[in-house]
């Protein structure tokens, strides 16, 4: 087994707002090892982004960490000194955001936005940072002379490339990509995915890919973790999970997806609606929507069980359903 890079233990996060209290994360356990690429998949509100932001100790206003531990290379993130924290952010772990239109500051040049990371973490001066930023732009397929252009002069796809360039600037050990292609068109998404595949090879960075798109996971990742209502409910290699999904939710998700090949059977929609973080059900959070629900499911939170060597599922029945 490779060294553990990021380890999240029993993470619980609550958002308290005027309107309501929402339990975004309810005991997340997740480990990413060196060189691994892990896909974190789930529908909106499942807690994917919150998990990522919590790992960087960047929870938005109103977010409280109720419980749990986060370790980066064995160090407790919550107890890091200010310097260690700054060194982790952007240098050891970097993050690419979902919406390239809002995640770049419109009043600074792209050169500045890539350069700021280099100046902060690599101690480069302005000129060196510019040169390096230019090289990074070219790596992601943008002509270097556009260094002094502003984000608004780029299309969405190119802005996301800028985001990626800033993300890989310090050759981080872990790259967190939060739905990096969701806001983009299919052909542009393909460009970004190909770019990320190439960078994965060149930089040997570990990857945490957050997405709701199962196709992207199956292209980019080796491992996958499925999230529902603030918990990881299934975890394993992509091959295992996608070919033999065990959790009723994962099964539902795969069945609900219209396909590009094969027959066009009626989609199997998951009954009910996505669990509301403000009023989470007791016991297994999926039980109101599960067709295999038993009395036990309604009362108790199931534990993660191993079903195969690299396949875990959080279900009392271990994903064994007859008929």
């Amino acid at each position: 087994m490779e060294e553990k890079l990021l380890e999240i233990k029993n993470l619980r996060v609550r958002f308290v707002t005027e309107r309501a209290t929402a339990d975004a994360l309810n005991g997340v356990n997740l480990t990413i090892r060196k060189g691994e690429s892990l896909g974190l998949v789930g529908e909106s509100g499942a807690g994917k982004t919150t998990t990522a932001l919590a790992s960087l100790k960047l929870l938005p206003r109103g977010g409280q960490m109720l419980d749990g531990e986060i370790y980066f290379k064995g160090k407790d993130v919550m107890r890091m000194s200010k310097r260690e924290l700054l060194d982790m952010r952007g240098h050891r772990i970097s993050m690419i955001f979902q919406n390239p239109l809002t995640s770049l500051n419109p009043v600074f040049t792209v050169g500045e936005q890539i350069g700021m990371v280099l100046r902060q973490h690599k101690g480069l001066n302005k000129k060196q940072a510019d040169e390096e930023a230019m090289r990074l732009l070219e790596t992601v397929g943008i002509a270097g002379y556009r260094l002094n252009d502003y984000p608004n002069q780029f299309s969405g796809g190119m802005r996301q490339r800028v985001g990626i360039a800033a993300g890989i600037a310090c050759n981080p050990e872990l790259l967190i990509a939060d739905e990096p292609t969701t806001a983009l068109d299919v052909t542009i998404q393909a460009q970004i995915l190909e770019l990320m595949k190439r960078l994965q090879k060149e930089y040997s960075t570990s990857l945490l890919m957050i997405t709701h798109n199962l196709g992207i996971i199956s292209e980019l990742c080796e491992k996958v973790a499925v999230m529902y209502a603030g918990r990881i409910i299934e975890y394993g290699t992509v091959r295992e999970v996608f070919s033999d999904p065990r959790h009723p939710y994962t099964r539902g998700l795969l069945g609900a997806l219209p396909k590009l090949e094969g027959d066009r059977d009626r989609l199997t929609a998951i009954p009910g609606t996505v669990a509301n973080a403000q009023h989470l059900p007791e016991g297994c959070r999926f039980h109101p929507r599960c067709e295999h629900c038993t009395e036990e499911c309604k009362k108790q939170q199931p534990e993660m069980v191993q079903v195969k060597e690299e396949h875990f599922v959080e279900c009392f029945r271990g994903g064994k359903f007859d008929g």
Partner: protein
Amino acid sequence: MYFRYILRRLGQTVIVLFFISILAFALIRIAPGNPARMMLPDTATEEQVHAKEMEMGLDKPLYIQYIKYIGGVLRGDLGTSASYQTSVGSIIADRFPATLLLTAATILVSLLISIPIGIIAGIRQGSMVDFLAMLFALIGQSMSTVWLAVMMIYIFSVKLNLLPALGMGGIKYLILPAITLGYPLAAQVTRMGRSGMIDVLREDYITATLAKGIPESRVYTKYAFKNALIPIVTVVGLQVGYFLGGAVVVETIFSWSGVGQLANQAVGNRDYALVQSLLLVIAAGFALVNLIVDLINAKIDPRITLE
């Protein structure tokens, strides 16, 4: 890009000035009574009135009258003041430096005070500092210039005898009028700085900057600050309108012999030629300030020139 924007903005300013001149022109003509008589002292004889009518071309169509008027304005001929019996242009030119000194000094000082207060209040949203800053701003917004001016004199001149109440002179004379004039502006800027900062700090790109490991202090002072400056600059442009109006009251009360005091005197003396020209000059000054404000904003925010 920026150059083209300057040109476009200059063009717009010229159009605005054109409309203002029409308004100033129309003002004399919509007023009840004979426009020519209005431009002259009350003592004017029938012959003088008749001569003035000819000079203004009142027997000709309106557009010819306007062309005559605007031609005069462009040549620097604003007419003759009825009460001062000299050219309006020279009277205004005499008074102008005093107003420039007062307004420039006031704007500068109130910005230097209010921008930091607003920004800090925005960063510390919900704290005591924020509450006090908001209170400062709301009271400032609600201070009638008239009342504030008289109160300033009452407290600092009459009661405490610290500062001179009336007239012009050294910096001592500047303090009371400047505070009176500057407080409402500072109040608005404080509010805008606060809400601007709050909005900016909610943006994704700020989270992204923090995720890059940039220290919070630098994120606030360098990155978020520039974004927050945009609404601040805009509000300064808008507030200068109220500000110039306030100058009339403040200059009158503090006997500051600037353009504002002149305007009040002109109204009192029924010196319509002077009123008309003052309207034109003050509005032109306002247009100029707005031009400068927009050019500054375009320098801060590249989106303005790119679109």
